[in-house]
């Protein structure tokens, strides 16, 4: 026993020493970490956490851009990249860093609105706006990243979202084209049901992204609703449009979706659509590359998929929260802006469109090297009668979190649409 104890103590000491020395170790080689390798001594180091790692559709684009930036600014600027897999993990870590006043030089939460909750620690970019920076995004995109006339974010992408439908399943149900009104939409859902097809992919977890896109599109089916869906940080959800839309969502949960919708996340909703278990899914063009991935879907699946705008001519067509800057001194602010200008350059945005299907923030960027559905979605965005922003960009972060709590209750009939609206109003009131 004495020997064992001595061995354990020795092991503890050796491993502790190894652990203490961990910081001096060179980080393991991964695509996103490449920039932190071999920094020149005089280079300014800026920090940037990325969620575009692993299976993310942006991983390859990000690795490519970082490598290119590194090559161009070697010895001048060194971007220390932190990999944070999972968008919710990313937001959680930013919250802790914000609380301890140690936000990184630049961060981008993939569309989550952290401007309003972290504004006091973000750099007001208005004085740094020059022609080069301004030209990187449309006015609409800059507007989404501004508060009270001050710019707090550098836009990266536009948000153009409609819904995708399976043309084969529509044909089986005798549906010729996507609905133009919500009444017609529900008639089509009934036809699909009658043909033995589950109409909708839905979810509740992680702010119920797919479900919430439908909810907000229904809200926007009127002038007042459209205004609501373009209002930043709404406080009152007790509007007739919102309550009606919540009632429709309740009906969708109870009648038109799969059993795994309640409690399910995006991947469950997507999986049902990929396996042709459901006929409709609301999502953006970044999903298109999966339609061609035969590891995910049957050969020829992509040819069956059509794109549609929401009934009433509604499309999500707006800017998206981009990169926020929280550098503490002028030198780092300048270095960070140089990095962001590179990452958002015309070349970078064109590559983003081609590699990820994400819509560039800059106007006039197009490419023949994209999947047809991506261009279809873009065309629908241009043709939309009503253009709205998405809930993750507009609503308070805690309201977005609250949705996941309330959707299952709404789905199971434990609360009424009015109570659902009130719950979100109560959450907004806490800010």
């Amino acid at each position, binding site marked *: *026993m*004495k020997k064992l*104890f001595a061995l*354990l*103590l020795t*092991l*503890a000491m050796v*491993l*502790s020493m*190894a*652990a*203490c020395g*961990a*910081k001096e*170790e*060179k*980080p*393991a080689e*991964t695509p996103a*970490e490449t920039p*932190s390798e071999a920094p020149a001594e005089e280079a300014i180091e800026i*920090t940037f956490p990325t*969620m*575009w*790692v*692993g*299976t*993310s*559709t942006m991983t390859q684009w990000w690795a490519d851009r970082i490598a290119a930036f590194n090559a161009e600014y070697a010895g001048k600027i060194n971007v220390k990249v*932190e*990999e*944070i*897999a*999972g*968008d919710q*993990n990313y937001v*959680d*870590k930013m919250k*802790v860093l914000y609380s*301890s006043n*140690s936000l990184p030089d630049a961060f981008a939460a*993939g569309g989550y609105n952290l401007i309003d909750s972290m504004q006091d620690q973000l750099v007001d970019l208005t004085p740094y706006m020059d022609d080069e920076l301004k030209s990187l995004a449309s006015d609409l995109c800059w507007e989404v990243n501004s508060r009270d006339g001050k710019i707090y974010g550098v836009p990266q992408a536009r948000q153009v979202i409609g819904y995708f439908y399976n043309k084969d399943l529509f044909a089986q149900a005798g549906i010729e084209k996507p609905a133009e009104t919500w009444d017609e939409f529900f008639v089509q859902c009934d036809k699909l049901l009658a043909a033995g097809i589950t109409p909708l992919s839905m979810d509740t977890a*992680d702010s119920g*992204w797919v479900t919430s896109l439908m909810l907000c599109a229904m809200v926007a089916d009127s002038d007042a609703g459209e205004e609501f869906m373009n209002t930043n940080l709404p406080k009152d959800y007790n509007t007739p449009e919102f309550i009606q839309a919540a009632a429709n969502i309740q009906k969708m949960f109870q009648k038109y979706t799969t059993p795994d919708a309640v409690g399910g996340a*995006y*991947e469950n909703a*997507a*999986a049902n659509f*990929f*396996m042709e278990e459901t006929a409709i899914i609301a*999502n*953006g063009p*970044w*999903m298109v590359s*999966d339609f061609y991935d*035969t*590891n*995910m*879907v*049957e050969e020829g699946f992509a040819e069956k998929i059509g794109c549609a705008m929401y009934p009433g001519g509604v499309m999500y067509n707006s800017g998206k929260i981009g990169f926020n800057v929280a550098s503490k001194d002028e030198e780092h602010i300048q270095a960070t802006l140089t990095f962001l200008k590179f990452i958002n350059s015309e070349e970078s945005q064109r590559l983003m469109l081609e590699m990820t299907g994400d819509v560039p923030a800059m106007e006039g960027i197009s490419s023949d090297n994209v999947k047809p559905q991506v261009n279809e979605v873009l065309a629908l965005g241009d043709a939309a009668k009503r253009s709205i922003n998405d809930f993750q960009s507009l609503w308070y972060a805690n309201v977005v979190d609250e949705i996941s709590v309330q959707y299952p209750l709404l789905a199971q009939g434990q609360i009424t649409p009015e109570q659902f609206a009130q719950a979100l109003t109560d959450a907004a009131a806490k800010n």
Partner: protein
Amino acid sequence: MKKKLTLGSVLRFLFLGFFVAISVGPLLWVIMSSFKTNKEILSNAFALPSSWAPVGYKAALEMAPIGTFYKNSIIISVVSTVLNVVVVSMAAYVLARHKFRGNTFIVLLLSMSMLIPTASLLMPIYKIMTALKLLNTRTALILVYAALGLPTSLFLFRSYFQGIPKELEEAAYIDGAGFFRTFFTIVFPLAKPGLATGAILQFLTSWNEFMFALILTSDTSVRTLPLALNYFTSQFSFNYTAMFAALTMVILPSIIVYAVLQEQITSSMVDGAVKG
């Protein structure tokens, strides 16, 4: 001689079979799924894979720095477990054996830390580690994990030490052993089953901990395995095959540790059951 099949034995067989199925079933499903393509997982969750080629494992190792995370998880879990067992066992021994003013208060105070939600500790610990310049080191995680397991280990070890006959220590003292010698050569070996239980709980806590690993580290070179699992499901994409392969690699050590120490744990549980 053939054993007669009775209703009791059939029921016993069914009962045990049920528990084996719910314990081992999910594990086997995960391992089986790690050899299936995404399409196969989505189309028929219970069918056998069309190929047993380790494509998912290759993809998992390419997508996430699992090797580095693995090494870190092993170092951090083992060191924090050893640290926790050695330090807490000494504290627990003193608190179990020596009656002094404030003894109960100290036990209550340390046990009460079990009631503090981990989320509320994130910010203060982040600040402390920043001040200690331990941010982004394995040492930070080792210290935090060893401390997180303190109340559970203390509770376990203290009650175990209380069950060891005092006469054994008195005999050691009479034979001329000092305090430390008595603890390390008499009490510590006798408490092996209790210590093993505490060690395994501590190892599993350290092995599976996610939030502190995320918050206190930023370099991939010092991060741990639980963070790796998020590389396979992102906001708008997922790779179930690689995720299940990674999951298999992640849970394997826990199962091995549990299997190796299982006898000790069972023995400790039984011993604890008859203590007053």
